[in-house]
């Protein structure tokens, strides 16, 4: 069993003069939650459509589960697109059954699994309702069920939380984490950086059709450490050796930059001699900071 569920090699997609993907490379570790990040128009949706074989790449290869991606693999992939909806006039039960069967599930198995999920979400009484009778939040739950119903190895969520209310966000997030525990790999694209930090193991940042950042989230955060420390002390006139540079001071909250050859302990020692330390913390960049910095630097 290969370690990566999906490897994308040199994916290129061009629409007329517009280059949507420019030799994109990705490796998605099995059983992880993979955040696909990037500003609008970066090419995330195009990439997800290529993985779902909705469109074909102009160049490049995709390796799924150790073998080149083929048509039959779509039954092993679940996709919740950003632009998602349901037939409004169709009944919920009939519709979910139809969509599950389109994924290749036999009738009885589809029915059984659907009842399981409907019970889990406590929505069994919607079975004979038309979709147009449901609220937006209700429809989103159904869309989620339809996406995961065939128990695929790889789940792809494009902006899964957009338009969800906080309660539903929590429900869906917990379900995603549970699916991960069950061994499913999840790719998800989002603008919501706090949810990236919360649930992603790995990320890739795409901008202008190129991967500009890829790897484990901890490692990326480490790489983006700025060696700035927030220090609260009781002295107003602090002076430090030259390897510690004071960036700012507001009400005795100091931002101190340590030069590359110095360590945080050295800073602590230097401070202990001069004042009383109230708090001492490394300023770790958030994913949002990293996102903005990476896109700007590019």
């Amino acid at each position: 069993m290969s370690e990566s569920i999906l490897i994308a090699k040199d994916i290129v997609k061009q629409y007329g003069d517009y280059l949507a993907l420019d030799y994109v490379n990705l490796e998605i570790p099995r059983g992880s939650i993979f955040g696909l990040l990037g500003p609008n128009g970066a090419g995330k949706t195009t990439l997800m459509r290529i993985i779902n074989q909705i469109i074909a790449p102009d160049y490049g290869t995709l390796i799924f589960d150790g073998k080149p991606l083929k048509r039959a693999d779509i039954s092993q992939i679940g996709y919740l697109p950003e632009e998602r909806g349901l037939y409004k006039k169709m009944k919920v039960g009939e519709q979910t059954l139809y969509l599950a069967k389109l994924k290749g599930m036999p009738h009885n198995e589809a029915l059984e699994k659907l009842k399981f999920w409907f019970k889990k979400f406590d929505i069994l009484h919607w079975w004979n309702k038309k979709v147009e009778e449901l609220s937006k939040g209700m429809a989103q739950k159904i869309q989620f069920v339809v996406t995961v119903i065939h128990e695929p190895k790889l789940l792809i969520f494009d902006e899964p939380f957009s338009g969800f209310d906080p309660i539903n966000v929590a429900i869906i997030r917990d379900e995603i984490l549970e699916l991960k525990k069950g061994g499913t790999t999840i790719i998800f694209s989002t603008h919501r950086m706090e949810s990236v930090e919360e649930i992603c193991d790995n990320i890739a940042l795409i901008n202008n059709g190129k991967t500009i950042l890829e790897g484990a989230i901890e490692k990326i955060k480490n790489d983006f450490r700025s060696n700035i420390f927030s220090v609260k002390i009781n002295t107003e006139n602090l002076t430090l050796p030259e390897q510690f540079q004071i960036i700012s001071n507001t009400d005795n909250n100091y931002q101190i930059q340590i030069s590359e050859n110095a360590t945080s302990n050295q800073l602590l020692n230097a401070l202990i001699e001069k004042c009383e330390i109230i708090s001492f913390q490394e300023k770790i960049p958030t994913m949002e900071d990293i996102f903005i910095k990476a896109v700007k630097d590019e």
Partner: protein
Amino acid sequence: MNKIWLIIKREYLVRVRKRSFIIMTILGPLLMAGIIILPTYLAMQGHDERTIALYEENTFFSSKLEDTDNLHFVKIPFEEVNIIKEDFSASPYYALLDIKDAENFTLYSNQQVSLSVQSEIEGKLSDIIQRQKLELAGIDLQILEGVTTQIEVETIIIGEEGETTGNAEVSFGIGFMCGILIYMFIFMYGTMVMRGVIEEKTSRIVEVIISSVKPFQLMMGKILGVALVGLTQFLLWIILTLILSAFAEVLFFDTLTISTESIAVGKEQSLILSSLSTSLAGINILQLLFSFVFYFLGGYLLYSALFAAVGSAVDAEADTQQFILPITIPLIISFILMQPVMDNPDGVLAYWLSLIPFTSPIIMMVRLPFGVSNAELILSMALLVAGFLATTYLAAKIYRTGILMYGKKASYKELWKWLTYRG
């Protein structure tokens, strides 16, 4: 293949279960029956007897004017003329015919005199004048009447299966019916496909589905599903029409035969009816039926693919106008040219229009009852198959890009670009 069946099944069931489908299925034959029965019924009724007041100084015309089934002439004295003119509605007459001399006739009435009354009176008067002129020229009227002859040419078609009796009127009627039906069906079901595509796009379910099936499968599934809806409706119409006509026969048969004999037009009609069975023998019913289904399906497949492409390129039905027009132009042209083609079913116009796949479904059906050689028919059918394969191929390319374009108003330039995109 299994998945395309699922799509066909859904598209079919959703539409067949709709209330509008059931209503159309029932109303269709009723409307058809109405169109046929009502004018006949009205023609039988509505012959009110009208009394026409007649004033003439002498008695030349008044002595010769004879009453008819619905016109009754009453000669009135001069004094009464002014009384009637003053207060027409009080008089018992429908109109007043004032004859000054053999060139000046005036018809007075308090309302617009009906066209049939006017033409009947004109006919009678000119008849009298003609006879008078003939008599003055010294022609014996009895000889003249003996000369009048009426002949009927029997048309016989020498075909591959031997000689058969032909009837241009019956061919005309059948051709016209088939042409209209195909035109109607292509429009109805073509737009049905287009609406289905727009619905999937606006409800945003399309991307969910094409992550399970290929866009081409979704498009073809929809087109074929709607085709089955069309065939179902057609079949139900035939069955219902048969049942209805059986009922109508029981209810109207006696009155029909009695009253048709009473009017001249009716006589002609019953003559046609009696010769209908022999005339129909001249038309290959089996070939006609097969061709009808073939041209309906072929024409529908050709156009519905284009309708699907239009649906994929827009966000709402209101935006379809600019793309619909070029699709409907060949359909409307075929519709308009049905008449000239029937006037000359073997002409150059008829020949070419029945070969071009965009017009052949309607025009060939119009020509077929007049007899078309097998070679020509096969060529036309082959071209139609090639035609719908070509439009489906092109439409599928537009479709698969169009369905993923949201909130963007497509232009022709854009559509052309979509055609060139790779898979």
